């Protein structure tokens, strides 16, 4: 019996948003009479935290604390169109729409504040704490609470904005394939370290060191959630997952979580996550879509580590103990 150790590396990039564009998302923003802000969308939160991120984007753009923003989403009676939550598009597309809507609302807010303070709107700034100040003369200020009251009950202004983001559709050229699949790309590099039992083919992933470049970490803890969970899913894809274990034969497809294999809490690799930020030119505050690509580099990194450990290639996913054992036996012959 020998437990053999190996490590492997993989580097990848990943497009943000629907391939070839043409996938719009709209947002509406309005203030309540007391200076809170509603973001109205039809985008869906799948657990990645869309609602929280849109609130932070809106708050940053208007210049208020995130607590002052409420996101109302996923209702076709109220929310304007969103193509949907997929293709790493949610933050990028909806975020841009929210920024546009929030900017328009902010402009109205500043105009009302300017009337109240009897200055030019261009001379005003927000302090991020709920107040609007005159640049260079911060003692001259008004709360956003009072601005919203004024807008509603005195000046008859709607502090609101409309946002729409659309990357125009690209059509591939038939013969050359010239096209514009995406406007920005996230990047990653993973180094995986494994142990392989050369008598049973069993693989233990000891460590994964993941470096992700995602444009901007809008909420670092939520980014970490995505990346840690994605890294686990990548390892899971590499070694465990299939609905058809004997593909292309359709027999013995799993029908429950006992038969559909994924790493359990006792199978976790020591996982390191490092994030780099190269803001994208067209992303909301530079953000790209990290949600999908974070599960990709572990698969080849683990595959390459298995080869490094035992000297056999398994080029079919998942890299099961059986496939490794068969390869080892073929190699021995």
């Amino acid at each position, binding site marked *: 019996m020998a437990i053999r150790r190996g490590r492997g590396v993989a580097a990848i990039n990943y497009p943000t948003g629907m391939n070839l564009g043409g996938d719009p998302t709209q947002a509406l923003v309005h203030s309540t009479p007391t200076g809170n802000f509603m973001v109205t969308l039809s985008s869906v939160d799948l657990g990645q935290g869309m609602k929280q991120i849109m609130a932070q984007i809106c708050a940053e753009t208007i210049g208020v604390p995130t607590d002052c923003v409420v996101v109302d989403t996923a209702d076709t009676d109220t929310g304007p169109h969103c193509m949907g939550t997929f293709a790493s598009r949610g933050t990028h597309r909806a975020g841009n729409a929210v920024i546009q809507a929030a900017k328009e609302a902010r402009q109205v807010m500043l105009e009302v504040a300017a009337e109240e303070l009897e200055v030019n709107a261009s001379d005003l700034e927000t302090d991020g704490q709920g107040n609007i100040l005159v640049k260079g003369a911060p003692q001259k200020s008004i709360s956003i609470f009072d601005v919203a009251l004024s807008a509603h009950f005195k000046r008859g202004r709607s502090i609101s904005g409309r946002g729409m983001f659309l990357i125009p559709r690209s059509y591939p050229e038939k013969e050359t394939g010239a096209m514009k699949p995406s406007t920005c790309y996230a990047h990653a590099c993973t180094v995986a370290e494994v142990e392989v039992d050369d*008598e049973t*083919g069993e693989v233990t992933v000891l460590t994964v060191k993941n470096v992700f470049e995602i444009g901007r970490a809008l909420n670092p803890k939520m980014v970490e959630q995505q990346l840690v969970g994605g890294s686990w899913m990548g390892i899971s894809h590499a070694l465990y997952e299939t609905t058809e274990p004997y593909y292309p034969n359709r027999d013995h*497809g799993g029908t429950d979580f*006992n038969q*559909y*294999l994924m*790493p*359990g809490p006792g199978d976790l690799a020591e996982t390191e996550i490092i994030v780099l930020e190269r803001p994208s030119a067209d992303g909301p505050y530079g953000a790209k879509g990290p949600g999908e690509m974070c599960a990709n580099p572990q698969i080849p990194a683990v595959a390459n580590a298995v080869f490094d450990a035992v000297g056999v290639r398994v080029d079919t996913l998942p890299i099961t*103990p*059986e496939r490794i054992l068969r390869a080892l036996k073929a190699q021995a012959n």
Partner: protein
Amino acid sequence: MALALQTFATVKDANAALKSAGTRYLGGGTLVVRAANEGDVSVSGLVRSTDPALSAIGVGAGKVRIGASVTMAQIARHPDLGALAGAARAVGGPAIRNMATVGGNLFAPAPYGDFTVALLALDATVATDDGESPLETFLSRRGDSPAIVTSVSFTLPKAGGLRFLKVSRVKPKGVSVLSIAVVLEQAGDGTVSSARIALGCMADRPVRARAAEKALEGKTLDQDGIAAALVVATEGAAPITDPIASAWYRAEVLPVHLGRLLLS
């Protein structure tokens, strides 16, 4: 038709009710309620018995009798059943172990039924109201008789006397690639005087590895001593193929894991 549950104080009355077509006995629910949830319309009625004997654990004079309704969790924490705790803990996660019963485990098709593998190596006896039968005989006729299993009995192995291994892809919980239970008796010189080896996933139900048992007799527990047993470990086995592993893989790694267990 709804799925109705009938509860009886005695096993006798429950046995009588089980004679109705479409009626199944409800133990911990992990097999039969699941089947009903999944649309198995052949199950139309459930029967259970609250007879306290079904929930009793009796240990005395080196003998153990475990009522059929005793759960895996109860076995795992019983102070006198430490030798079986590993096998009981091999079943499911914590919630399943609070529900899954000894009686139910006897009926669990491979890759389930790991605890029964341990019972088979212990040469357990299965009791119903009709009498007692060796577990191996019971398993060979599993499903033929509707009689409710009331208990299993066996001689309590000494501490460490039951070697048990469950191999899973998913840790710490996961269904079996295979499971192995071994009970050995050794002579004063350390050679094996008798061996009972039971295997899970090497057929649709737990089976004994008789050729390997025989090959171990008179041998010492070292690499050379067990070699002959490992060669014949799969003799007579018909491993299952399922989403977890193929028959080929199970047969290939059985000798590896058996060897490791014997040398552990």
